[in-house]
């Protein structure tokens, strides 16, 4: 597609449930990033994938968070046993290749944990 797409756009879940968020990067982009944006805050880096290299998971806040990416395509971010503090907008970005500066962002998934 023309840009980064994410689904669902909104997700409401109950505390304790697992959720899966999906990101489709721009075709041909080898790098993919996940960020979290809490209400009124800047973005926090969660995890990034670069080609077939091991992902950089240094930003994941707990072991309830995990992400996968199939090759250089779709990525899913999974949050297990959701907590209310997980409520945020989860943003995905992609960039063309290592060293390319510009990251292109998707519209985000707004997650609300009740």
């Amino acid at each position, binding site marked *: 597609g023309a840009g980064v797409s994410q689904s669902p756009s909104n997700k409401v879940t109950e505390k304790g449930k697992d959720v899966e968020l999906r990101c489709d990067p721009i075709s041909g982009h080898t790098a993919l990033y996940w960020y979290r944006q809490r209400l009124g805050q800047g973005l926090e880096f969660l995890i990034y994938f670069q080609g077939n290299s091991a992902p950089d998971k240094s930003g994941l806040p707990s072991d309830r968070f995990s992400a996968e990416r199939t090759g250089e395509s779709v990525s899913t971010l999974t949050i297990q046993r959701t907590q209310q503090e997980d409520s945020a907008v989860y943003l995905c970005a992609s960039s063309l290749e290592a060293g390319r*500066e510009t990251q292109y962002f998707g519209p985000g998934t707004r997650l609300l944990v009740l």
Partner: protein
Amino acid sequence: AQSVTQLDSHVSVSEGTPVLLRCNYSSSYSPSLFWYVQHPNKGLQLLLKYTSAATLVKGINGFEAEFKKSETSFHLTKPSAHMSDAAEYFCVVRIPSGNTPLVFGKGTRLSVIA
């Protein structure tokens, strides 16, 4: 480690008057610096970026920013505000090696008064 400080959480200007959004950064390396804009319920959009070329960077919609190494600043300016400029603005820093993630400031909300 690198970090970004946006000095104002909220700036309010009258339509037609200049805009100044302040940003200071901290980085152990020569950084790449960006400004992103986020309109309500829209994705993040890159306004402009500095990557060690010209210190005065021109972006979209009439915005520009000047990299001042001596002051570790990268303030965003526009000569004349328009109502459509009302949005959240994020100053962002990144080490320009490999494909490291972006580090975001907490954002400045710009209001434009008619």
